[in-house]
Structure formats: C-alpha cells, structure tokens
C-alpha cells in the first residue's frame, strides 16, 4: 500500500514537472527566431570547443588507454546533463536571488514542495542547444550500440540531478551568507570546466576535491568509465552519489528555510 502511494506521488510529481517544462518551452518558442538562434549558437559553440579538443588529443594523446572518443563522451555527458538540468530545473540558478528578494514567499504559500517548485518555475532555453549538441556528438562520433544509448540516457539523467542539486546547494547558501550571487557564477563555471577535461591530468588533493565538493568526477569521469566498461557496482556508486547530493541539497534547503521562516535573514526584514 505504501508502495502504491509512493508510485502515485512520483507519477503526479512527474506530471507536475512535465507541465512546467511544457509551459516553459512554449514560452521560449514564442520568439521563434530568437529561440532557434540561441539553440544553434549554443550547439555551434560546443561543437567549436569539441573540434579543438578532438584535434588536440589526436596530436597529444594521453596514456592509460585513452581513446579519442573519450573526450567526446566527456563533453556529451556533461553537456547533456547540464542542458537537461537547466532546461527543466533552470530556475535553480535564481534561487539565491529569490531568497534575497523574498520571492520565495510565493512558492511557500502553495501546496507543493518548495525547492522543486522553485526549480522548475523557469528555464533557460539555450540549454536545449547543449542537449542537441550532446546527442549529435554522441551518436555521430562515438557510434554507440543500443545498450550504450540506453545507458547514456540513464547517465545523463543522473548527471542532470547532480547539476541541479549542486546549483540548489549553492543557492541555499544565500539563506546563511546573504548576497552570494557574484560568487556563484565562477563556481558554477568551474564545475562545468572541470567536467570537460580528462581526469588523468588531475592528481592528489584535486582528484579528491573532484569527487566531493566539486563533483566533476561523478559528472563526466564515472559515466565515461561506465560507458567503456560497464560495471554494476560503479553504476550503483553513481546512483548513490547522486542520492547523496540530492539529499544534501534538500537538507540544506530545509535548514535554510527554517532560518527564512524566522525572518532573521541577513539583509532581510519584513
């Protein structure tokens, strides 16, 4: 019975997310030419970078069984995950600002889980350019088999959750540290940057960092390993890591919300 209720709630939540995604997409497509141009621009941008790195790693291949398609997989998985994250949960980027300006109130007075609701309320349509690029690059350059495609779909969804959780964590810091907008930008950029380089070049403390505070390791490296040599344990590990990050994000948000409800936030008085 509890299982049935769980399924029902999940189904309704998915429908909820779906309704918002559809509405946001329709709103973006209102300006058809601008939307198309944004998507094309992002796709072109990603392709330009990949073109450079593809040639770079052909000339300077890394050791330890590095294949040229590896860089494509790194880029495809991180770009797709990022694109999905921003295309569906795009408003997470604005969480800090909503907290500071009291915009969170509107979501709190409605009967849905606030963090989820805030996240899906708005999106950045350029993200679909990243998804388009990622799917194109993966299919055209990696020539994957059917199982790999299925695995890819699962992986990018997990990665999207990690990205979203990361953004939500950063945004929730605003509950405690006040106006952190300017700081968040370089950190977000850093995560994306770290995700698009092979793990081989990082050593020691940095590697540890990339599996903890800045989960670039889970975003691109682990999926790369999985796509090359599938392993149940590794997949479970990735799912576990995703769960941890999502849990942390929800936890920090809940803590911050208590603070918000006391009205004693820095720089905010009713």
């Amino acid at each position, binding site marked *: 019975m509890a299982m049935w209720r769980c399924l029902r709630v999940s189904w*309704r939540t998915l*429908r*909820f997310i779906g*309704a*918002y995604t559809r*509405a*946001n997409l*329709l*709103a973006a497509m*209102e300006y058809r030419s601008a939307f198309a141009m944004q998507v094309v621009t992002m796709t072109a941008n990603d392709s330009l970078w990949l073109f450079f790195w593809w040639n770079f790693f052909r000339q300077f291949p890394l050791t330890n069984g590095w294949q040229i398609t590896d860089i494509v997989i790194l880029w495809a998985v991180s770009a797709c995950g990022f694109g999905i994250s921003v295309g569906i949960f795009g408003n997470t980027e604005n969480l800090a600002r909503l907290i500071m300006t*009291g*915009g969170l*109130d*509107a979501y*709190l*007075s*409605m*009967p*849905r889980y606030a963090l989820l*609701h805030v996240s899906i*309320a*708005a999106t950045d349509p350029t993200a679909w350019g990243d998804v388009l690029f990622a799917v194109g690059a993966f299919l055209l350059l990696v020539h994957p088999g059917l199982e790999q495609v299925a695995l890819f779909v699962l992986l990018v969804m997990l990665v999207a959750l990690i990205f979203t959780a990361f953004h939500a964590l950063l945004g929730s810091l605003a509950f405690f540290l006040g106006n952190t907008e300017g700081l968040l930008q370089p950190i977000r950029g850093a995560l994306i940057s770290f995700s698009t380089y092979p793990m081989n070049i990082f050593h020691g403390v940095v590697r540890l960092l990339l599996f903890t505070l800045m989960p670039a390791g889970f975003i691109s490296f682990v999926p790369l390993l999985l796509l090359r040599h599938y392993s149940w344990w590794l997949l479970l590990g990735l799912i576990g890591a995703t769960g941890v990050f999502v849990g942390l994000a929800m936890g920090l948000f809940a803590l911050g919300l208590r603070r918000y*409800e*006391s*009205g*004693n936030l*820095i720089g905010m*008085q*009713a």
Partner: protein
Amino acid sequence: MKAIEVADLAKMFRTRERAGGVIGGLRSFVAPQYRERAAVKHIHFSLEMGEVLAFIGPNGAGKSTTIKMLTGILYPSGGEARVLGLVPWQQRRKLSYHIASVFGQKSQLWYHLPPQDTFDLLAHIYELDWCAYQQRRAFLIDVFDIADYMRTPARKLSLGERMRCELAAALLHRPQVIFLDEPTIGLDVIAKQRIRELIGHLNAEEGVTVFLTSHDAGDVEQVCRRAIVINHGEIILDAPVAQLKRDYLRTKTVELLMQEMASSLVQTDQQTGRQQLSVQLALDTQEQQKESGVKVVKAQGHELVLEVDTARYPLEPLIASVMQRYHILDMTITDPAMEQIIAAIYSEQRPVDACASA
C-alpha cells in the same frame, strides 16, 4: 469554526548589528551584537467565515509580518494563531490548499507565461479535477472579464489587467480565505474601482473570507465591513467600517483651481482672524457659522484648499453654490491620508484603547 483566530501573537526580529570598517567587521564577526525589533506586539483578533476585513496601517506597521504569519511563511516569537482551524506555520502545506494570497507588489503570475498557462499549472499545483477546473476557469474568466488577455504573456499586460488575472488565478482552487496584500497599489482610479467591485462580488456570491491590507482608505471604505488599524505592531482600533467612516473618514480635502483669485471667495473674520468661505456666509445662520464644518486651509493665487467635514456639511451643496458664483477650472477631492487617520485615532486614545483590548 472561525476563519481566523489570533491570540497574543507577537514577532520579534533579531538583526546583527553591522559596524563599519574592517575592525568593526571583525568585531561583529567574533562577538556579534544583536538588535531586536518588535514588529508585531501581542495582537488579538478573530474573523468569522465570510467576513471582509481591512487591515490597515502605515508602512512598517506590521501588516505584512502579520499576513506572513497567518499564511505560515513566518513563525511567530510568541502567541497563537489558527486559520481554518490549522496552525499556519506548522501545517502550512495542508492550509495552502484552502487559502490564497495575492501580493500587490510582488507579482505571482509567472512573468514569461500567459495567464492561460499559469492557470493550467495552478490546476496541477492544487491537484484540481480537470473538468471541474475547466468549468471554474470559464466562470472566473467571465466574471473577471479577462478573456482577451489569456494568451498574452504576463509581462505585456498592464498592471490593472495583471491584477485581475492574479485574483482570478488565486480563486481557481476555491479558497475559503483569501489574503490580499495591497491589491490596488499602483492602479489608476478605474482599475482600482474594478478590483474593489470584484472583491465585493466574490465575497457576496461565494462567501470567501477576505483579509485585505492596504494603506489606501478608499479600499477600506468601499470593500470592507470591518477594519483593524495597526501601528507600530499594535492594534489601535478594531471597529466596523461604518464607525471608522463616521469618526475618521468623514473629512474630505477639496482642492479647487479657480479662474478668479481665491481671495475673492474668502473673508477674514475681523475678530478671530479666521478665514471663512464667503459663499458659506450667505447660506448659514450666525450659530452655524461658528461651528462651521468647512475650514479654509489655503487661499493663494487661484488655488483654494478646503477641509470639509462631510457629516456636518455635505459636499454637493457647497460645491454647487461655489459653482453658481465662480468658475472652477479644476477640482480634486481626496480622502484623509492614513497618517492623518492614525493621528486622529491616537488623539482619542483612551476610549479607543479600551475597545481594542477587549
């Protein structure tokens, strides 16, 4: 069951004192000093189902804080409150299915979406039955007359159009209590009128309990039947609007721009030095002149400003008699400002206090 019950509700804000400079910053980091501000101080009131309450006061009086506590967004420092039998800050989610809030200054309508889409999303949010929702939506579109804007993105609508859409959206899930925070702020006179009519209509037809905050006296006069005045976090008056009107809203300020010089309408009494409207002198008897309900505030150039006690001296005959003899180029009639009302209430503090704390 009462719609809203508030007992001894209080809210204290604690802020960290911010010192300037590097040393001050360090000091406040290591040993922070806190400053406490009482936003709401032990207020009591209750609301029956179907009432329309005006919660008025100047800026910073504690109105928004009170609404936030009643909707569960803020938890209080002390006291109790129940909305529809539920404790807002403990059962916020459950309560949110039965209430709605519309903030005049912070638009809830998703800016990039047309009202059509926002309504559909709200149906999802409140888990409404789709058929019932569609009927309800059609009904509200009709009542609020927003059919023309349903597909226009919210950012392209005027403030008045957006407010109507917001109100309609807020009523989709048939809330029993609706909180309106400054719903007519920034609207032009006609739009204000429309919103007020709609609120009144809804209360009459559907029995929605309305909790309205405003610092526009016009909202109070026309829409609400009961008024609570709050200042510095305390309730200083809790009375039917009729009483408020009778005691504090009856003075109207009339500004006239005359073709003639204003001094020609005014005569200065030799004994008291007071200026009086000569038109008046023609109408009144000697005794009435002494206790005149008309005060000349300013008579400069072509401008004449009068303060009229409408209980004692109705406006129409006064203006009619002025028009008969003189040429009025422009006329503005305004209600007293909230600050004046508050001041008037304070000046009669003793008897009013006894009423409010009962």
